[in-house]
């Protein structure tokens, strides 16, 4: 297969008093096998809804349109049976909070072998051997002991390793990880970032995060989302050294640095539009210092990896 996943004109909307309102507004995205792609954006940018839709596990009230192509299967229109075969097998997900995503009354081994046995016709012994193998691969110490534990008996970092093991156990082509380190402490986050960077085997990774530094740490490509649209994308080095979209530049300059002069931070003024707001033109215009009448009159198209009428050049100070 030439692509891990191909998303074409994806729209995810929710019912509001004023009719359906889109939180993902026509996304096109291709992830190649083995690629590590970060989706970066603030809360409400639509990054999580896009991730959930890719597995077909978006909330019941969501309306999904467009195409999410895994091979020749379109996840948007696929039957439950077809989607279930791909989920956990071809595409899997790591959630933010492992304690709420793992079943508290079942052992690690039982939860992991369920996933193996659902997708392969193998016996209990073989499944447990695979569990042991994958727990070892994600760096869990004493895995033969740990697999008998319940989730609450593990630390946050180990639980997140179990989540990653669960995502990897059927050797998927693509793992979607939604803020996998946000709930973790600093030194544990560093361990998990290491694992995501170099422990994914052949699987492609789509990392959803609000932190550009986390994205740069793990991925080779960054996709920046704002209010339901992709506004910029490119290789990590390009996005960091020469970001062109004012929003990407805003995100970079808002991060505090180790700078002895402690210059005042440069926040992006205001806040993103809510789902109910109807915004003519560019959805970032009201917060953008480069915006002019063109920006409020029409919406810039995504051309040459950027959606902006006034792309900026040069490094961010």
């Amino acid at each position, binding site marked *: 297969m030439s692509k891990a996943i191909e998303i074409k004109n994806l729209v995810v909307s929710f019912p509001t008093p004023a009719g359906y309102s889109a939180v993902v507004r026509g996304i096109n995205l291709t992830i190649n096998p083995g690629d590590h792609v970060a989706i970066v954006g*603030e*809360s409400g940018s639509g990054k999580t809804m896009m991730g959930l839709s890719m597995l077909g596990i978006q909330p019941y009230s969501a309306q999904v349109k467009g195409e999410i192509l895994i091979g020749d299967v379109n996840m948007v229109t696929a039957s439950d049976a077809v989607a279930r075969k791909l989920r956990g097998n071809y595409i899997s997900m790591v959630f933010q909070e492992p304690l709420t995503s793992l079943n508290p009354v079942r052992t690690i081994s039982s939860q992991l072998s369920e996933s193996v046995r659902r997708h392969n016709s193998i016996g209990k012994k073989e499944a447990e051997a695979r569990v042991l193998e994958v727990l070892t691969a994600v760096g869990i*110490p004493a895995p033969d002991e740990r697999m008998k534990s319940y989730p609450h008996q593990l*630390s*946050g*970092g*180990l639980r997140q390793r179990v989540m990653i093991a669960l995502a990897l156990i059927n050797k998927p082509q693509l793992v979607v990880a939604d803020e996998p380190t946000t709930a973790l*402490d*600093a*030194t*544990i*986050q*560093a*361990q998990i*970032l*290491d694992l995501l960077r170099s422990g994914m085997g052949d699987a492609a990774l789509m990392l959803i995060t*609000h*932190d*550009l*530094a*986390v994205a*740069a*740490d793990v991925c080779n490509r960054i996709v920046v989302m704002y209010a339901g649209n992709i506004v910029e994308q490119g290789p990590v080095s390009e996005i*960091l050294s020469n970001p062109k979209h004012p929003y990407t530049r*805003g*995100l*970079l300059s*808002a*991060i*505090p*640095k*180790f*700078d*002895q*002069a*402690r*210059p*005042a*931070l*440069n*926040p*992006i*003024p205001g*806040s993103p539009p809510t789902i109910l707001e109807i915004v003519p033109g560019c959805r970032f215009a009201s917060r953008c210092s480069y915006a002019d009448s063109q920006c409020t009159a029409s919406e810039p198209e995504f051309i040459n990896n950027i959606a902006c009428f006034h792309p900026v050049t040069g490094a961010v*100070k």
Partner: protein
Amino acid sequence: MSSPKKLISAVDLSVTFKVPSGSLRAVDTVSFYVNAGETVAIVGESGSGKTTLALSLMRAYAPTSGNLFFEEQDITHLSEKALKDFRKKVQMVFQDPYSSLDPRMSVSQVIAEPLRAHFKLSAKEHDEKAGESLKAVGLSADFLNRRASQFSGGQRQRIAIARALALDPKVLVADEPVSALDVSTQAQIVNLLQSIQEERNISYILVSHDLRLVYHLATRVVVMYLGKVVEEGACDDVVANPQHPYTAALLSAVPALDEATRRDRIVLNGAPPSPIVRPTGCSFHPRCPIARPECSTNTPELQTLSNGRKVACFYPGELQPHISFTSSK
């Protein structure tokens, strides 16, 4: 220049909780002070005791042993009634503005609640004071009659800060004040905290795990591990030249935009052990990349180095992280 005035200070403060399997010493013989107008950061991971220390500095927990002073008065055992004046002068901002504001109250009620607790004011005076507080955090007084639930995360945190400022406190304890917010909004709140400090000469006790934020805001930093202070000093010094290997690892763990920091990252093994069953010797030795045999038997004391630096390690300064400093000059 006269020597700076200590506002809150703690001497050998310990806080112990009873748990089913014994006792948990969340704060273990910690000495701490904050001077007028300065920002002291308490850093560490979950379970390090940083929040418990901050709360016990506010006398939210009664210390198990040690002493707590406010403006040189011993307040360790003062009754709640006698503490009323102290309560006015020390206020708090919490991490999550979605749970720290009552969604059913109007903004005016939220901000006026501490005023009502301490003063007898008319409704009109309440609204005036609340309006002033709201302006001080960059929000319009028109918001007074709206409910907290109508605001975004950043605006809610501004309201929480306005409530803390309503009594014109001398010390503000801020526990992870921006970690629940988006990056772009974080910067707004950080700048706000800085300008408030400049205007009012207020002291901050900042509890945070984000060392970039700590470096940006704090004058002094206290690093905690399993309830004990392992390093302390001027923020510039500690970041530029960490003495404790745990501080070095924390600094190194900061997600970085540059390649070199990532390549040379110090990654610790495992997680902090349980504070109920402490490791022998130095608490950090099971995770320490430079631990020697003696570290598992002998406990390093917190010793004072030059210019007020303190460190509890037998091999201070041996482990150094790669940090990329930027310069805006």
